[in-house]
């Protein structure tokens, strides 16, 4: 019998990206989802039916509370329009706001790298104080750990938050309804491109600033104005990833119109140059809302009157139920699918 020759044989079974964690697992896209579904949720998520929303809901003495946590790592620590401190406060405030909760208190945990200048830390902490003041939330507890030089990149911050959900509010990624109108609160992609342009190895400069902002006041105004079914802040993975998640959670078909997407010219230009799509670029001060059709114009008007909703726009609607899909009418009149960010966002070659 001839011996089987393994020389040059390659296994046709697809390569799982790795058996170790890669940066793509933190991108907020499909790989992040895989990690959640394969590892975290089976072990830890049994009691978390709303694990795919931005906050969890817990019931205590007949009152619903929202609870959430978020760790913040960003390089550089200071970028146009914000810094890691403001990001850490706004990130958690916004996660609470995205299920309609009124934020009450935050905790924050610092992981500091040995050698971090006090002056820098002071700047970050002052920025946190200002952001918390703006959001109308207080920081109730904190913790500090210091690690050896090289064991962390300067400064990581975790914030956790709790908020109260008023009666009658029922906002979740799973609540999108047929004919819902989809709104965004402003221009997309500002944060991602601002941070990118602040990195030293980037050969372009812009005057663009990150949009990092607390959205709880905007959300409260929207709730007063109409029936809100879904809210989400499209952070990592961008608007596209949020829409795909909502389509899946609610099992609906979404159609958005490319021409109505608010995108700043500087963001558009940077994306064209680098081969990015603004739909996938991170935001830190924007939300996407699914609103009952009848209330959409009223909600839009109210949004436009607020500080962080001036550029709000209607971008699409739910066009069917029973099939989760996101479609886009392109600016030239064609249609195509919109997918999640698969992994790390990579600039193209040419």
């Amino acid at each position: 019998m001839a011996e089987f020759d393994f020389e040059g044989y390659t296994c046709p079974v697809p390569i799982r990206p790795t058996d170790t964690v890669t940066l793509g697992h933190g991108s907020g896209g499909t790989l992040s989802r895989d990690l959640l579904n394969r590892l975290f949720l089976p072990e830890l998520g049994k009691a978390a039916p709303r694990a795919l929303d931005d906050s969890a809901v817990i019931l205590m003495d007949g009152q619903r509370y929202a609870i959430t946590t978020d760790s913040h790592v960003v390089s550089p620590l200071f970028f146009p329009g914000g810094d890691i401190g403001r990001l850490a406060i706004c990130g958690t405030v916004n996660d609470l706001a995205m299920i309609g909760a009124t934020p009450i208190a935050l905790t924050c945990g610092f992981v500091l790298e040995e050698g971090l200048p006090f002056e820098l830390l002071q700047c970050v902490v002052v920025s946190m104080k200002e952001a918390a003041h703006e959001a109308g939330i207080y920081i109730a507890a904190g913790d500090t750990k210091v690690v050896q030089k090289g064991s962390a990149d300067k400064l990581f911050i975790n914030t956790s938050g709790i908020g109260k959900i008023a009666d009658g509010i029922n906002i979740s990624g799973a609540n999108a309804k047929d004919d819902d109108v989809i709104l965004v609160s402003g221009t997309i992609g500002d944060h991602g491109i601002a941070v990118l342009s602040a990195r030293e190895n980037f050969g372009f400069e812009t005057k663009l600033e990150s949009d990092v902002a607390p959205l709880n006041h905007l959300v409260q105004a929207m709730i007063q104005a109409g029936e809100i079914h879904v809210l989400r802040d499209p952070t990592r993975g961008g608007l596209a990833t949020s829409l795909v998640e909502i389509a899946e959670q609610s099992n609906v078909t979404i159609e958005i119109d490319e021409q109505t997407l608010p995108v700043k010219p500087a963001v558009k230009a940077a994306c064209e140059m680098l081969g990015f799509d603004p739909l996938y670029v991170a935001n830190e001060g924007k939300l996407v809302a699914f609103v009952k059709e009848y209330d959409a114009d009223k909600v839009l008007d109210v949004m436009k009157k607020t500080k962080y909703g001036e550029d709000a726009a209607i971008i699409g609607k739910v066009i069917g139920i029973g099939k989760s899909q996101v479609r886009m009418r392109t600016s030239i009149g064609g249609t195509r699918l919109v997918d999640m960010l698969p992994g790390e966002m990579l600039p193209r070659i040419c």
Partner: protein
Amino acid sequence: MKYLDEYRNPAKVKSLLREIESIVTRNWVIMEICGGQTHAFLHHGLDAMLPPQIELVHGPGCPVCVTPLEQIDKAIAIASHPDVIFTSYGDMLRVPGSSKDLFAVRAAGGDVRVVYSPLETIHIAEVNPDKQVVFFAIGFETTAPANAMAVLQAKNKNIKNFSVLVSHVRVPPAMEAMLSSKLNRVQAFLAAGHVCAVMGFHEYPPIAEKYHVPIVVTGFEPIDLLNGLLAAIKQLEAGEAVAENQYQRAVKFEGNESAQRVIRSVFESVDRKWRGIGVVSQSGWGLNPAFAEFDAEKRCDVENIFTQESPLCIAGEILQGLKKPLQCVAFGKQCTQQTPLGAPMVSAEGACAAYYKYHRDVVYG
């Protein structure tokens, strides 16, 4: 945005589509060479707006897709070395080698960095004198001038810890290889505008004449693509076959001569293996002997790595335009953007990735 919006004007798109419809009398198979063009067709939903007589086939013009597996394996071997900082254009990190990709190398502790310009690598070499810094110099004629410039600068600055893993390929020899094949179905080409911006299109008239095939230099916006198609279809319908330029705002007949000089000073024409196609004679560039000291393959001793493709992946037929991604049994099943079997699914410019991203619904219903 200027220079973009006017090339995405919906009214103009409609009128060009009407014009194309009005002159088409029979079926034509047209290949867009460049992966950037493939993506533009699908990104704008333009492919589905064309008259049914026009069949687009997607060419081999995606540098990530055609870089042979063994070059990826060499890159992985080099990047895994603890004394190496390996730099690359972003897309290359996700291309699977025979056992892993560069992301996995990075996750295992390898120093793998994405650069936006090869000149950044020179800077990295200067500030890390105790490391060997290796740049993955891949791509078509578009990236060749900048990659060559990095090597030139390294030589001028006498930088000893910089080298390049070269896998450059050229468009015209690949076109000839396809046209000479008995299986060829392509009746006209949309030539890659970016490549022609560097090289001009003086290489194309002899090809158009020899194989009696229209070649239209075409840009990347919807209006550019439609103008390119219109010109190609006019030629096909009239039985003509010449090289013409529909991308005049970026392309001159002679191209960018100073860029060409930089290329010629560093590289020489070599036989090159294309992923899925095989070795094409004189179809690539390698370092010429004067720059041999910058050859990472020699420096890092990876010259003897040879590997083979996954048998399921039909990248070869995709890249030659013989099959569409949707005709592949692995498409959307074993082969997805998260678990790519072959390079066309990996690269932002790969045909399979474009179909997966924008047209997956056709498979899933």
